[in-house]
């Protein structure tokens, strides 16, 4: 106890001799370290979705992909035939040589694109469909590698248990289409490998492409 008291007195004497400028500098350094610690405890959040995507690509040892779609929360998309959907959360998609990355807020996943066009769904009801009398929840699906000349697109996914989800889409980038799958009964989370059929028509209504596959 006496040793502790002596140490405390020695510390107080030494602290009194330190100038106010040095005390302030030390305080600011500690503030910086604590801020860094708080940022790390929050999971090192980055200010933009693109920065988050680039970090995810780096930590998964992927070369930077081309960002082909970004949708902000509350952003609306016109899917044609009077249909409008609004995103409930931030979404983005990027494309590499043989893969794509889908991102929802700060969660990302890689999708291998063995053949194109390839459909990949986000994993929650991330959009609201205002087309009908009531607002319905829908699941966004991105299709990569859509051939040039497509003017209209339809997607059909067999979600299991006899449930079929359908939706129309719109082009959001060259070769990239966004579809909104909706089910009038309730919201669904899509599982990968669900069978799907996608069809694209030209401006004159003639069939451009119809293909069956699985949802990635």
């Amino acid at each position: 106890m006496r040793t502790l008291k002596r140490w405390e007195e020695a510390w107080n004497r030494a602290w009194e001799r330190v100038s106010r400028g040095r005390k302030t500098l030390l305080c600011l350094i500690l503030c910086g370290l604590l801020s860094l610690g708080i940022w790390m405890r929050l999971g090192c959040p980055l200010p933009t979705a693109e920065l988050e995507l680039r970090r995810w690509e780096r930590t998964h040892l992927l070369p930077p992909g081309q960002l082909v779609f970004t949708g902000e929360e509350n952003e609306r998309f016109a899917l044609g035939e009077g249909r409008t959907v609004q995103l409930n959360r931030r979404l983005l998609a990027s494309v590499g040589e043989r893969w794509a990355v889908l991102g929802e807020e700060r969660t990302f996943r890689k999708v291998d694109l063995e053949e194109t066009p390839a459909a990949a769904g986000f994993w929650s009801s991330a959009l609201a469909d205002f087309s009908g009398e009531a607002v319905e929840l829908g699941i966004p699906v991105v299709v990569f590698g859509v051939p040039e000349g497509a003017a209209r697109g339809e997607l059909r996914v067999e979600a299991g248990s006899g449930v079929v989800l359908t939706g129309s889409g719109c082009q959001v980038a060259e070769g990239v289409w966004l579809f909104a799958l909706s089910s009038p009964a309730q919201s669904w989370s899509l599982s990968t490998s669900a069978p799907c059929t996608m069809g694209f028509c030209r401006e004159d209504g003639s069939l451009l492409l119809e293909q069956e596959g699985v949802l990635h």
Partner: protein
Amino acid sequence: MLGSGKERWLDTAVSGIRFGPDRRQVRRELAAHLEDKEAGLHRSFPDIPEAEAQDRALAAMGDAEELKRELARIHRPWLGWLWTASRWTLVVLWFLFLLVGMGNRDGVVERSLWGRMTGRAMYHRVWGGERAQLGGYTFQIIGAAYVDRPEEYGAEDSLQLTLRVSSPRFWARIDENTVLAGLTAVDPHGGRHEMDRHIVVNRTDTEHNSSYWITSTWGTRILSGGDFCRWGLGWKDFSLYIPAEDWTPGARMTLEFTCELGDFVLSAPVTERVVVP
């Protein structure tokens, strides 16, 4: 009044100090000096009137205006405000640091500065192991051991390498699954073992009571495969195991890594034998 002259002198002397706490502190000190001088005068001249003692003490302290200019020159207000603000900020940040991360335990690795997975260890540290650079990360072998497990429990021995993946970008620690999926370990005889799948051995006890046999599993050891074991600021460690068949001290264990960005090969001699329970 007797005190009014002293009060005016003190107010004038400290009026040049713009930082409030310093102004109050200096005023207290000057007032104490004045009282000491007055007390000294009363001791030296017991019959001196109070007013005269105060006037003499004030005269001895000097001109109030000149003292005001000197004190204003010494005391910088911006430093005082910065000092106060930094102390309050430190207190707030300290409380925030304690509160943040206390609730949500999801993603505990990403939200913690360091830690280790339960039951996973590096058995023998190696210094100056081979290293490779890929994608902004440094891959280095930091441990190599022959893991000798007790024979009586049927556990087989393994060779263990510990691989550290580090980066100065501490906010972007590498993904564990990416590392294990790309790693293949090659034993000294050329056998290849994928690190993203485990072959384990279980330690079991079998006992018989009056009616039936009871087999209980009370320990699992990795015979072949990789595990994420520890992490720190900017690095993650992985323990990689392969079966130790016909091991001789100094036999080399090799790691081959492949990913979209490239590939590399690292190897290390396993010289140390570690007996584990």
